């Protein structure tokens, strides 16, 4: 196990460098530059060229790649000239809300999706199974922007149960920590439900199919034959084994916690990495774009490693050496 983890950690390095190299290559080939959308007649071509040279010196992309690595090794992950701040600060300002939103959505999805999947599987083809199946297909099919606008209209505008925008009420900007925390939670409920909707559905589908497979296996029949109660059979014997594919699914969801959710962030006026990345592309703010992608790449690589390790933990048949 220890050797396996070390080997996997070492593998992360070349994969990470390779992905970054490709990223620098793509950016080099992309049209437009950070000064292309300056629309100001006093900015003559000479002034724009001088500005571009200061912000993004004309170097071959592998040179830029190397410079970035050297700087990153010294803890400098670039400077966002659009925000006049280091990239790491810009990401830092946005990642908190993204993380809180995605984590809440993930928890909602698991709390609803997994039990619903189990019920669906144990009562296959019953009325409740059909209902949940339709519901989950709807959840998967409904585009986030539509679901978001709908919930905004119903729960915020008509019923006025929730605020229409933001992460904090304007009156609570200077409130104490606990008031603010409560206010943040209040602002997150609606967007987290919207974001969690599609995920709930996918958790439910995975749980259902995995559970169905397990229920039909020999050891479940054996357990039933031993005279164990249905509850024990389902929740003790079947459920644990059915969870194995869910762990993998969870592993893949971890990078999603920090990659942001563009549509949800946009509709509910939340700051977040999703909007930030799109802005970085539109403005050709390459230092920021590279910073965000480097972070996401690392998160994805580590998340898959953790998923693999967890896999071994929940499934005794899997042994790494």
């Amino acid at each position, binding site marked *: 196990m220890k050797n396996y983890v070390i080997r996997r950690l070492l593998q992360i390095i070349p994969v990470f460098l390779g992905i970054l190299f490709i990223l620098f290559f793509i950016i080099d080939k992309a049209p437009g530059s950070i000064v292309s959308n300056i629309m*100001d007649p006093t900015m003559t071509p000479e002034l724009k060229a001088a500005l571009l040279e200061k912000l993004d010196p004309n170097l071959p992309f592998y040179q830029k790649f190397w410079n970035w690595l050297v700087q990153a090794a010294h803890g400098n992950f670039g*400077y966002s000239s659009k925000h006049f701040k280091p990239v790491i600060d*810009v990401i830092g300002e946005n990642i908190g809300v993204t993380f809180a939103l995605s984590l809440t959505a993930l928890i909602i999805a698991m709390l609803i999706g997994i039990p619903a999947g189990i019920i669906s599987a144990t009562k296959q083809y019953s009325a409740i199974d059909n209902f949940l199946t339709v519901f989950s297909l709807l959840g998967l099919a409904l585009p986030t922007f539509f679901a978001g606008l709908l919930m905004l209209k119903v729960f915020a505008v008509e019923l006025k149960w929730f605020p229409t925008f933001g992460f904090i009420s304007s009156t609570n900007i*200077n409130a104490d920590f606990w008031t603010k925390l409560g206010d943040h939670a209040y602002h997150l409920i609606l967007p987290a439900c919207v974001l969690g909707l599609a995920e709930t559905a996918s958790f439910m589908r995975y749980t259902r199919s995995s559970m169905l497979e397990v229920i039909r296996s020999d050891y479940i029949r054996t357990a039933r034959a031993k005279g164990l109660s249905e509850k024990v059979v389902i929740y003790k014997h079947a459920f644990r084994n059915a969870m194995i594919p869910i762990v993998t699914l969870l592993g893949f969801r971890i990078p999603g916690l920090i990659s942001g959710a563009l549509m949800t962030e946009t509709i509910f006026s939340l700051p977040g990495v999703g909007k930030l990345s799109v802005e970085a592309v539109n*403005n050709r703010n390459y230092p920021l774009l590279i910073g965000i992608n480097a972070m996401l790449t690392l998160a994805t690589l580590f998340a898959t490693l953790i998923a693999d390790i967890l896999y071994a933990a929940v499934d005794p048949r899997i042994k790494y050496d």
Partner: protein
Amino acid sequence: MNKKLFVTALSSLLAVSALAGCSGGGSSTPTPDAGSSTPAATAEAGGGEASTTPQVLRFGCSGYDIVLNPILSSNVYDGWANDLMFQGLTKTNSSGEYIEGDITDSIELSEDKLTYTFTLKDNVTFSDGSPMTADDVVFTYMTMKDPDYTGPRAGVAATYDSVEKIDDTHVAFHMVAASPANLQNFTYGVLSKAHYEYSSMEEFEAKNNDPMGTGPFKLESAQAKQYINLVKNENYWDAANAPKLDGVQFLEVSEEALLPALQNKEIDFAQPAAKLENVEAVEEMADTHLVSYLANGYTFMCFNTTRPTLEDVKVRQALVYALDRRNFLLAEYGSNELVALGMCPISKTSWAYPGDDELNAYEYDLDKAASMLDEAGWKDTDGDGVRDKDGVKLSLDWLVYPEATWPGTLSGMAFDSWKQIGVELNIKTLDFNTVAETAMDAAPGEKDFDIYTMGFSLSADPDPTGGLFDYDAYSAGGYNASGFYDERSQELIKLGLAEFDQDKRAEIYKEWAIRQNELLPTLIVAYRSEIWAINNNVHGLDDIGVYTSWTDLIKDVTMD
């Protein structure tokens, strides 16, 4: 999305106008509440009743960058927050002329028109109570000339050679060239030298979190993409013009949530997109009213006149005759009240606008368009439905960006109506930055498009130098992509900058605008309106206009 794009495309020349409130002539009464921790509303706050709840005005919009420094910010929304915290040497009046700013007593122009000497008011202080002097002005304007400066004002900095302190209240700007448009370079808020002095540009930029100017408000706190919270500057030097509000909040609200937030009274006013659906939604709200006016800007459609298909003015005119722009305006904006048909490169709001009678509106006329193409020698000789001439087909590439909806609508309508007169149109959708690169950044001869569309905001001064219609800007990185040369037009642009009398200047620009309207290197598609939705409990904002930003009105704003 539309709004956001407009911001990025915004010419920074658009006045980062200083605060209104013509000072009462330099009275130096100290603010009574200075130092007290609760800025309780005093008698001036309302009809005698001292209300206990602070009066905070909440503005909602989407797209703050939160760059709280007047010489670094290039975003209109940030610009408004900066307007409330900083004051410049000049500002625009309600007719778009540049006049003395709040901190300036007088401006003197030398005989050779190359040196502006500003006399500063002697009682101006920063929000920490320290006096503002000529040193602060010199510091602010020399920072823009720092070789490490990467902000958006390099073009402004290039208009003056040096800034000279004469004494504490007198400062002289030595300009590179004489120009009647020079006063627009001095609108940027003055920074406190003591507060902002830096050893590296990053240190200077880090002060964006802690701005300090002479304006009536100061920063309390800000959160990226969430809010900017301004509170009353208790040390405000101009006591006679001190605002009655206790604070102003800029809240990030998505386009989708703007009107709902207004309806739920989570914000007090907003600037929704000028479309009929928004107007109707606001009119349905019980406690909200609308303010609208024609904005200083236009949307345009640029023809690449270096292409054999578009080099003939008859072809360009025919294409415009074959474009039902009135219908387009109705389809896109829903109402003729929210938009005006584009006529010429001078805004309808400008003192230099020639008047509709002098200009050709190119009313939709397919027959006329077809006969003009015939006259120009473009005929369908091979029977494929597309006109041709000397082996070249009349087939055009139009670059459209999806960040705004109107280029798609307009090009879609052109596709249909041009087809009827035998013109083939290929609509190419690219992102805004790529369109800008293809049309502007590329060198002459490599500009790979026939038509592209975009929207610009304009500065209050109508000088077209360096812009869409100036042949000198036809270069790699220049803003003229049409490549059209007309000797008289270039002459007029130069004459306009040599004339300091506004009436005579207006005549020059009128002749120029009429020429452009006829020669059509670039068609002005529309002049758009701006609309504001304001809650009825806010008083004093209804005079928002094209050259009067709401920040100019702030001193008289009260709330129920």
